């Protein structure tokens, strides 16, 4: 993955629009967050291999970036995206890596299901 280039990422988001795609969306502050600091409220969400179809995908030019997908009946968005790549399987992988290199958020789009 490399740091977000708005034009490149926007073109990739456009390329998956109006197609049936599988998404992976994840946000976390780590399973150990409240072990290391009891004041931290540990929360997160995870969804993988849910099929959606979006009509408009947009990355906002404000780093770390926000990426939103507008669907016929709803929305998907991720906040804190810093890195992206189109991997060798043609999947668009986006991630938000914090200052220590830990994943804080991930949004991935693929025309084929992700592994288990």
């Amino acid at each position, binding site marked *: 993955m490399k740091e977000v280039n708005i034009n490149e990422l926007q073109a990739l988001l456009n390329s998956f629009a109006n197609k049936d795609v599988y998404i*992976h969306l994840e946000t*976390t502050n780590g*399973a150990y967050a409240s072990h290391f600091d*009891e004041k931290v409220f540990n929360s997160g969400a995870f969804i993988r291999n849910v099929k959606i179809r979006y009509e408009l995908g947009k990355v906002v030019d404000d780093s770390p970036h926000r990426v939103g997908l507008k669907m016929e009946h709803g929305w998907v968005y991720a906040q804190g995206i810093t890195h992206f790549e189109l991997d060798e399987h043609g999947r668009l992988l986006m*991630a938000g*890596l914090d200052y220590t*290199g830990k994943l*804080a958020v991930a949004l*991935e789009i693929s025309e084929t299901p992700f592994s288990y």
Partner: protein
Amino acid sequence: MTLQPERHILVVFPHPDDEAFSSAGTIRLFRNMGVPVTYACLTLGEMGRNLGNPPFATRESLPEIRRNELIAACEAMGIEDLRMMGLRDKTVEFEDDEKMVKLVTDLINELNPSLIITFYPGYAVHPDHEATARAVIEAVRRMEKEKRPRIYAVAFANNTMAKLGVPPIVHDVSSVKEDKVAALRAHHSQTAWMMAETNHRAEEGKPMSDSWFNVESYYLYTFDD
């Protein structure tokens, strides 16, 4: 304390590196005595958060990296029977409870271990650790009392000492410290930062307390009946 020979040891943890942090020295010492060790590792740590910045992996490439790290760590510990059980990181507690118990029961029936090493339920911090421990304890609880293997349970919740007291089983693993370090190093994606920090502090003449490289401690899980 001196290790006594075991018939067979079954190690059950959910994530590649759980075994290295808690038990690499103990496993290596038992392997050096010729005791067979089977490691059932339930997931590949697919949800590991450390991808680096700049990143060395993606969410999708991490599992294969960790699979290879796990294999290398097992070589460092001398584990010849590694079972990758195919569950997904962070989902173990959501699996069907009976399926989880059966997974452990099947391993026990096949291997007839005299000792199982796993986490201590209620004191294992991570939801996958807790779910793994619950499945192991329940599988053993259902066995006839005389046939149950002993359970060495790893506990590290912040309230462990307050609730469980001092761990009764303490292994001096200093004689195989290099093997433990090698196993931790093998889990590079998870431990590189920590190992670098350890070296850095040693070079500055203020090494971290290295007690956890030299000592591995367990609670003996016991049943009421």
